[in-house]
């Protein structure tokens, strides 16, 4: 029988190459959707298999799938699928508006699939060195996507993205070298010293000094990609200037995968270092990120830039949650990651169509969406309410869990958390409200927007707020327990 996992990696790789070779044909958008749907189907079946049969290796010990990464694989493949559905009409509208040509669309589709491939590879590899390689490859595939419009601003954003993430990822490589050095002293020069399954077995014997240094470098390096302050500068630019589907996958997926890399290393650092060094470091970075991003939110004029800052804010909160550690906080962190991915990509879908309709991303010029297109208007409004953590949406549940856990174990952090969340609420709601309601003068789009993904995502977020299916709870709990 063909291994499902092979499909998960082979479909995006093969379709990415096929789309690059075939060029922009009438069927190319459909191939993009079919490939993404196939990847999702394969990963969903793989998940069912892992949930039933437990973790396993693929290709010797090269890949390792356990309950933690299989959950990210499904999420990544799902958001990849809905983004490809959304991008079909969106990109056709961009072409009619003369903002993109056929060769650029070809570049976009093939790079999108290759980006999916690099992220799925990063999630499933057992080798922390290959994890680094895949993370770097994920940057490389998206650099040219950020500069897809070739405007001065988009070129600048892409350049900043490349240089900042390049410098960041170099730190992560140094961290990986140090980790390898620490591991080699225990495991010997067998070539297994970067395999996570081996490392986790000997994590108590790794040298604490080296591990502390390695963790700092890895946190700073991968943290650049997560968008942790003060290394977040690339993120708002890349989100605002790139095409909206790219913003959706950057926010919804890339940040998650980078955080996943940090979590894997944190497990090792926690095992090696007797004190709670790694957790405290993450809590500090997380709080700083949350506060700085919340205060930057109110100063934004570009709608995509604002929601990019909101992504930074949520990443800060999630980093803080994982920093606290323990079963409850890890559970909340994982849940919040899922919900943020779904909600934020839904918001970007709605924002993309709204910006297309009004011909601008400047918030002051977007008005009265509810009159032009009630569906987009409500999509944006509900998405905003969901991301702001209003009940009954799921974000409320995860934020509530993080807050109560912080109150119990780190009471000093509670006022800071509440302040940041309050500031974020006021700034975002105050800006979205007139965009949705209010006077308008916008035009009709040549292609009807694909709005279903927005509501599919929001429906899942709503459902997770009201009721988390028991198998999902078990799965989250198992992953949370692995994080220690």
């Amino acid at each position, binding site marked *: 029988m063909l291994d499902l996992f092979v499909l998960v990696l082979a479909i995006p790789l093969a379709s990415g190459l096929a789309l690059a070779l075939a060029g922009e044909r009438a069927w190319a958008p459909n191939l993009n959707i079919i490939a993404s749907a196939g990847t999702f189907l394969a990963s969903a079946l793989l998940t069912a298999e892992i949930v039933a049969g437990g973790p396993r290796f693929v290709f010797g010990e090269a890949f390792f799938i356990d309950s933690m990464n299989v959950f990210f694989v499904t999420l990544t493949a799902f958001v990849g699928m809905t983004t490809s559905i959304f991008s079909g009409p969106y990109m056709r509208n961009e072409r009619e508006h003369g903002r993109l040509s056929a060769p650029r669309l070809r570049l976009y589709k093939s790079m999108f699939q290759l980006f999916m491939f690099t992220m799925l590879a990063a999630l499933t590899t057992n080798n922390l060195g290959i994890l680094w390689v895949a993370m770097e490859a994920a940057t490389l595939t998206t650099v040219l996507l950020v500069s897809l419009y070739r405007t001065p601003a988009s070129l*600048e954003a892409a*350049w900043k993205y490349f240089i900042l993430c390049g*410098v960041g990822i170099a730190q992560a490589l140094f961290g990986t070298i140090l980790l390898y050095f620490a591991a080699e002293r225990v495991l010997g020069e067998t070539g297994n010293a970067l395999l996570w399954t081996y490392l986790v077995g000997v994590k108590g014997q790794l040298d604490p000094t080296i591990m502390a240094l390695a963790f700092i470098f890895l946190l700073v390096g991968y943290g650049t990609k997560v968008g942790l302050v003060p290394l977040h500068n690339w993120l708002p630019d890349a989100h605002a200037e790139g095409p909206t589907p790219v913003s959706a996958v950057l926010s919804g997926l890339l940040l998650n995968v980078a955080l996943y890399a940090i979590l894997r290393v944190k497990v090792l650092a926690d095992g090696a270092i007797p004190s709670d060094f790694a957790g405290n470091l993450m809590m500090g970075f997380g709080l700083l990120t949350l506060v700085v991003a919340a205060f930057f939110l109110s100063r934004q004029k570009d709608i995509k830039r604002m929601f990019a800052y909101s992504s930074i804010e949520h990443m800060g909160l999630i980093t803080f949650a994982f920093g606290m550690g323990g079963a409850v906080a890890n559970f909340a962190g994982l849940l919040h990651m899922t919900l943020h991915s779904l909600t934020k990509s839904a918001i970007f879908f709605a924002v993309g169509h709204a910006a297309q309709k009004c011909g601008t991303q400047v918030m002051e010029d977007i008005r009265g969406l509810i009159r032009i297109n009630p569906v987009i208007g409500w999509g944006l409004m509900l998405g905003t309410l969901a991301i702001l953590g209003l009940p009954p949406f799921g974000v409320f549940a995860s934020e509530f869990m993080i807050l109560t856990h912080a109150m119990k174990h780190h009471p000093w952090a509670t006022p800071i958390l509440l302040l940041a969340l309050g500031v974020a609420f006021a700034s975002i709601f105050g800006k979205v409200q007139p965009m949705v309601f209010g006077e308008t003068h916008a035009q009709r789009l040549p292609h009807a927007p694909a709005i279903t993904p927005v509501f599919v995502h929001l429906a899942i977020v709503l459902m997770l707020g009201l009721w988390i299916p028991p198998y999902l709870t078990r799965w989250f709990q198992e992953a949370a327990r692995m994080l220690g």
Partner: protein
Amino acid sequence: MSLSTQLINLFAATILLLAFAMLAQRRVLTLINLFALQGLTLALSTLVVAVTTRQTHLYWSAGLTLLLKAILLPWILHRLVRRLEVKWDVEPLIKVPTTMLVGIVLVIISFNVALPISQLSSTVSRGTLGIALASVMLAFLMMITRSKAVPQVIGFLAMENGLFLAATSATYGMPMVVELGIALDVLIGVIILGVFFFQIRDQFDSLDIRHLERLKEK
């Protein structure tokens, strides 16, 4: 001190000197040649480690370094500056003495950071870990101080050279599959940047990064 250790130290010191030379170099063309020379020295020092320790995979990585960093990447960069017509570019570098002084401070810091790790290391080349970290820092400094795109990228690649030196001095190199992956990433990165340079030049008629400073928080 054995001959091999002395040779390794000599090569590592050369790499550090080249890093300083790159920091102060104004000409793009000379900068590329210095980078090629650094790549060559790196390959030689890896070769010495390989001969001393008889680690087969180190021969491979020495060959890979020679091929990629001393030949292929400089060749791509040469072609790029010729096609972009920036071959004779001279960058007006201000405050070279200050930059050099900052560089020296960075070297001292790097040596101090590397000291506890070197003491734990048992490799023949363990003394060079401080130098490796210093080269990374100097390359980073070069990226910050430059305003043209090509020198910034050379700084980025020089940083990778320093990291590679760190990998061979702390351990005997990373596993082969990881090294191949890193090499592939670097190569693809340079090619993508090449494409990107043409986009920047078409848009701004120059490769000056100062054009790329409009996106700021107001």
